[in-house]
């Protein structure tokens, strides 16, 4: 009887892998190559013992601990150790995003599209589709772990050891895998793909904030947070395989729960019962603008809250970070009270310059989502009937584009506001709102360029719209990690964010802003032309 539940899993797995082969290969190549290129370049970045000592000191500052996790003491000053301290949190985030997108994509999107109903009508076990997805993720992560490990072996960074290479590679792969399994649980709880992703990311966000707080207060507590385990690998230092085992158990447990929930759930439903809607539309729902607003109302509120909370969480550690006197009491005598306050402020502003990137990338996600939904709504057939009414294409295009711009800006503003509000409470010498406002005015124009390019893709090359996501991911990489690993200037400038000077440490460059605005308007005009003249799907 049991076997009936999983009948044809193998077949589904093969179909699944074939269907997603482009996506899978793209992720695999981008991740493994990216990671190995960085590893290979590390010995160039840290050529001298002095450079290594410098980075070890930098990583020990609270700001860096908040971003990259705590540092082992005593720290071994080798290239490999620097790599193992800088990379895990960032890489784990990217790996988790990959696992989330693939897991929900194959576990829930097919179901939403009604495809699964067809599949299940054949001699396919009830749990087979879910198990096939889980196996696909397992295979992919195992492959990533294997390739990373072998790659690190080949590159052989100064100070690297075989066991260190493997604990790092398998540790990262197991993190991604475990969170992939976790999102399979979320996919059973929510009633749509979008809801599943929202739930998954909310859990990740909560854990990310949690680990930042515990890392700064008491790193031992980070063991309570699954996302924090990846910081405990200690590759090339005091190696620890416990996180790998933990992730294995965590993932298996999650998979068990997901299968259990799936077996009890109706196809196409979630655990939350569907609610009845309105009998008549509200007076506000009258055209494309209000329609797009109405459709994204829920997720806009969620994003605003998430951004506000994340901003606030970052700001709650400003005081710890901007307290030079804590680590070096002498400094107060040297600089004097006013001088110390100014020096502290510079440190916080440097930290802010990185957070500005984190938050703007975060804000760009819902913006791009809305922008690209113009194509997916068209392909799902939702717009078909809309276009048969007296609604012009320009109007619809402008509604999606307008909401994308507005959402991106508002979510960014919410994050900065969260920082400001908590900063006022937590800092002895709080930053003025104008600092945050400068960040806003510096980064929003760059974000607009990215939204405009996404819009251009919807108008001219709808099939290639996923490039927007790749570009954003690269922007995140080049700005979050790029500064630390000395990415060349041209490589940083492959995204508009690379042109923004280090605000708020430096002043807002209005010439760049004007330039960006002009570019945005130009690209949007082109996009509108393309969208008006192309054939629509369906």
């Amino acid at each position, binding site marked *: 009887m049991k076997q009936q539940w999983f009948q044809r899993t193998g077949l589904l797995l093969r179909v699944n892998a074939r269907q997603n082969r482009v996506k899978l290969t793209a992720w695999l190549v981008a991740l493994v190559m990216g990671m190995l290129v960085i590893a290979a370049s590390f010995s160039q970045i840290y050529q001298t013992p002095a450079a290594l000592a410098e980075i070890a000191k930098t990583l020990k500052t609270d700001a860096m601990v908040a971003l990259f996790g705590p540092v082992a003491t005593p720290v071994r000053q080798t290239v490999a150790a620097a790599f193992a301290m800088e990379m895990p949190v960032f890489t784990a985030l990217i790996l988790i995003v990959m696992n989330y997108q693939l897991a929900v994509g194959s576990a829930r999107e097919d179901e939403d599209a009604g495809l699964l109903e067809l599949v299940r009508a054949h001699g396919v076990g009830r749990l087979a589709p879910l198990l096939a997805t889980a196996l696909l993720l397992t295979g992919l992560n195992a492959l990533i772990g294997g390739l990373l490990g072998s790659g690190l072996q080949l590159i052989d960074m100064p100070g690297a050891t075989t066991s260190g290479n493997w604990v790092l590679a398998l540790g990262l792969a197991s993190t991604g895998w475990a969170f992939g399994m976790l999102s399979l649980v979320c996919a059973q709880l929510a009633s749509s793909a979008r809801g599943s992703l929202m739930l998954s990311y909310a859990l990740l966000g909560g854990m990310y904030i949690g680990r930042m707080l515990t890392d700064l207060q008491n790193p031992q507590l980070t063991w309570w947070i699954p996302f924090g385990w990846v910081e405990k690998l200690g590759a090339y230092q005091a190696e620890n395989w416990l996180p790998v085992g933990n992730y294995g158990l965590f993932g298996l447990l999650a998979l068990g729960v997901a299968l259990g929930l799936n077996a009890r759930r109706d196809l196409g439903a979630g655990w939350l019962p569907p609610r009845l809607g309105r009998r008549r*539309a509200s007076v506000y729902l009258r055209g494309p603008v209000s329609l797009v607003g109405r459709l994204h109302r829920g997720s806009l509120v969620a994003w605003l809250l998430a951004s506000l909370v994340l901003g606030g969480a970052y700001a709650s550690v400003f005081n710890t970070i901007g307290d030079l006197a804590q680590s070096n009491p002498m400094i107060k005598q040297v600089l004097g009270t006013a001088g110390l306050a100014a020096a502290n402020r510079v440190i916080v502003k440097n930290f802010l310059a990185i957070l500005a990137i984190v938050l703007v990338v975060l804000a760009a996600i819902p913006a791009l989502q809305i922008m690209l939904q113009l194509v997916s709504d068209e392909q799902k057939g939702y717009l078909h009937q809309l276009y048969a009414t007296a609604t012009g294409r320009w109007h619809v295009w402008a509604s999606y584009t307008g909401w994308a711009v507005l959402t991106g800006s508002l979510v960014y503003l919410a994050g900065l506001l969260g920082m400001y509000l908590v900063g006022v409470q937590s800092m002895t010498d709080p930053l003025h709102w104008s600092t945050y406002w400068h960040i806003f005015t510096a980064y929003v124009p760059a974000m607009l360029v990215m939204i405009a390019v996404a819009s251009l893709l919807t108008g001219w090359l709808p099939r290639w719209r996923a490039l927007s996501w790749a570009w954003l991911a690269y922007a995140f990489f080049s700005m979050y990690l790029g500064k630390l690993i000395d990415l060349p200037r041209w490589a940083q400038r492959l995204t508009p964010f690379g042109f923004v000077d280090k605000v708020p440490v430096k002043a807002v460059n209005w010439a760049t802003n004007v330039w960006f605005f002009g570019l945005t308007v130009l690209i949007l005009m082109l996009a509108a032309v393309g969208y008006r003249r192309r054939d629509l799907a369906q």
Partner: protein
Amino acid sequence: MTTPILKIANVQKNFGPVQALKKIDFEIYPGEVFGFIGPNGAGKSTTIRVLLGIIRASHGTATLFGQDVWRDSVAIHRRIAYVPGDVYLWPNLSGGEIIDLFLRLNGQTHSARTDELIQKFQLDPRKKARTYSKGNRQKVALIAAFSTDADFYIFDEPTSGLDPLNEQTFQDEVLQLKRRGKSVLLSSHILSEVEKMCDRIAIIRDGRIIETGTLAAMRHLTRTTVDVRTVQQLPELAAMAGVHGVQAHADANHVSFAVDADQLTAVMQYLSAHQLVSLTTAPPTLADLFMRYYAADGTRSVEGK
């Protein structure tokens, strides 16, 4: 004759190398219910998408109300209502919200007529579109279309998911539109529906319109089936021009056969000369017509002419 509402002349559409529409011409006049039939993949939906300005014709011209369907699509859409074959609705809006939205997008409002239609089609407007069945999604689109006061209605297989009761409601509503002098384009695979409601019909196959006309005129092109009993034997019948498929029955002098319309008179004279006992004739049904035109072999469509 009055000027046509819809005029589509030599329209072609290519999707890359695929030629989906090769030559489409027809006209629809005010107050006319026009049937559009043809096998799967013939190009019905593609033609309708061209008419709606959702895709652009590669060649040819198409006008509605004398305006170009691509350039003036928004102005045209103010005066039309449309129901697609596959209705996809925003999953988290309720049926009631979607109906109101579609009405408002055409500058109209929820009226008593809308409520009446919701009643007639028995739709629960409070359910989210996610939870609607195929038929219920179709009803949402139908209610929005029928309560729109338009001049031209386009239906692309509108009843493929409806139960017989709701299909009857659909037919009643279309006949009511006809009485009010509206024009309708109805694409359908349900031939009885087309037969009952349409004034004129176009048959499309493989991207070409192969026949246009009234059902009566089309019938004229095909064979009538005849079942006859006579007193005397009918030895020459099988050899007569225009007579096909003669089948003798068990009882004496009882045969059935099919006869081409243009030979009907001659055959009838021959039969009556042999003293009729009973005679029943059946006009060709649309289904008979269809089988002839749909058959993959292109030459057969001209056989009846």
